[in-house]
């Protein structure tokens, strides 16, 4: 039943470009982008229980690495590789100082990472063109970008489903619930934390590269904006952090609301975000996917 629904959804999205206008396709592209970021965030944020507000930093490293290599004529394969490997390497290095922090401190320190990278991207003009923004050679790439992200979203959801019933997933949830007890049982929690963050960062970098590839113009203010930084966290929380489908449900809801706001008003999108955060925090801290189980 569930499998049938999932197959039907994937099939519908596969065939969508034949029936829909390019406006609908770019909406779906935006939806996949948020969903992929939220899903990859949630491995660290939901399953492992470390609230990584710096997920957008890895997204941004990927976006810039791809853009810089591609704009300088490095070729596509090298650009894709850079966009995956650089964020992963950054995550590996950041693990050492950051996983000394727990809880709220980890969240704020990773949030600082986004602010730091925004300054770096703005200040290192020679590399990133600074606040003027980086442009890559254009081309009509909406359809290949759409399919890339569709495949990525499907793969991520499958991976999360596997994670939720594997020993690895069990270890992550155990670390979330009581890290000291896990250590006492002889599980080297640092390896799990470091590995999960690295894989999650690599995925975020890949999504960033697809973003640059399709949009062709990026600025520090756009890539490292507040909205991009809190987006994956908010979406995973609203949908249900630590569940397989939660990030997808959250992404769908947020994208519908965002498009509605865009049609109605240009402003106050962050205010709506903020009020939704407060309401979710107060009334459904487990997210929409957990509403059912409580009743």
């Amino acid at each position, binding site marked *: 039943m569930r499998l049938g629904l999932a197959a039907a959804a994937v099939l519908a999205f596969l065939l969508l470009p034949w029936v829909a206008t390019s406006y609908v396709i770019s909406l779906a592209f935006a939806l996949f982008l948020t969903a992929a970021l939220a899903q990859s965030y949630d491995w660290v944020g939901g399953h492992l229980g470390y609230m990584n507000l710096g997920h957008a930093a890895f997204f941004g490293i990927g976006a810039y690495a791809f853009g810089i290599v591609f704009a300088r004529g490095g070729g596509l394969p090298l650009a894709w590789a850079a966009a995956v490997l650089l964020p992963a390497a950054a995550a590996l290095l950041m693990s050492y100082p950051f996983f000394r922090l727990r809880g709220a401190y980890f969240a704020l320190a990773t949030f*600082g990472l986004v602010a730091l990278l925004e300054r770096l991207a703005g200040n290192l003009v020679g590399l990133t063109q600074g606040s003027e923004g980086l442009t890559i050679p254009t081309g009509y790439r909406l359809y290949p970008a759409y399919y890339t992200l569709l495949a990525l979203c499907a793969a991520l959801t499958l991976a999360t489903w596997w994670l939720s019933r594997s020993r690895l997933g069990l270890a992550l949830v155990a670390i979330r619930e009581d890290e000291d007890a896990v250590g006492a049982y002889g599980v080297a929690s640092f390896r799990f934390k470091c590995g999960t963050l690295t894989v999650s960062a690599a995925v975020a970098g890949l999504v960033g590269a697809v973003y640059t590839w399709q949009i062709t113009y990026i600025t520090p203010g756009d890539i490292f904006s507040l909205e991009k930084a809190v987006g994956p966290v908010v979406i995973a929380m609203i949908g249900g952090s630590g569940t397989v489908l939660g990030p997808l449900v959250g992404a769908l809801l947020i994208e519908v609301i965002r498009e509605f706001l865009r049609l109605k008003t240009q402003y106050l999108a962050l205010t709506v975000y903020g009020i939704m955060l407060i309401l979710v925090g107060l009334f459904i801290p487990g997210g929409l996917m957990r509403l059912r189980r409580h009743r």
Partner: protein
Amino acid sequence: MEVLLQLLIGGILQGGIYALGAFGLSLIFGVLRVLNVAHGDFLILGAYATFLLYSTLGLSPFVALALVFPAFILIGMAVERAMIRPMRAQTAHEFLVASILITLGIALAVEDLLAFSMVQPVKGIDYSLAPFRVGSLVISTLRLLSLGVIVLLSVALHLFLQSTLQGKAIRAVIEDREGAMLAGINVLAVSRNTFGLGIALTSAAGVFFISIIPVEPHMGLPLTLKYLSIIVLGGIGNLPGTLLGAVILGCSESLVGFWWGAEWSLTVAFVILIAILLLRPKGLFG
């Protein structure tokens, strides 16, 4: 040499302003176990309140402080009652997540509403006092007076925590929440009062902030980040350590700003944070 002295004086004042807010964040975290992500935004709100009082009523920042401080005690208490206390029923992990969500929500809404409601969001006040000279050194009277009031406030806070009943209750709850409950301390009331006090301290920092530097709404979250570096630097709940951490941050920012440009100041805070985490994970004095 004189340049260096000027920079250090500027840095110490900036550090004092940081310290006021960081005391508040540290106390709130110690008592409520909530990391108040919206902390920097309450500084911005305090700064805008000062701007309003100055531009409409012509009140000097020092008079404004006397109005802003009590007003923000009440605002803080109301926020605690309405949004923080209802989360208490949840488990530890859920409480942490929900508290970050809610305070982040407050921060986003406050910043966006402030930016939206103003045609020109960057606000500064042109209040100034005649500077005076010591030898060849020119010292701003306003800055020195601000520093004096900040020192007074810090000393008052220290005395309040050390010798009044409410202050002792706050320290007891920081030490051991359950133990404080057993000893008959009304932990809910202490939490509410601490939140009010912490918010009022950061709004007071905002009063001095705007008399020296123009503010704009989106400075809030980076400020919270600087506060975090400071309390990690000084150790949580350690007021003298926090003060020293704030002065270190203020001075290094002022020196870096002079040599490389002000746009690098947040980078400095972050590099300090990482270095401390690597070398002394429990804080410099922890």
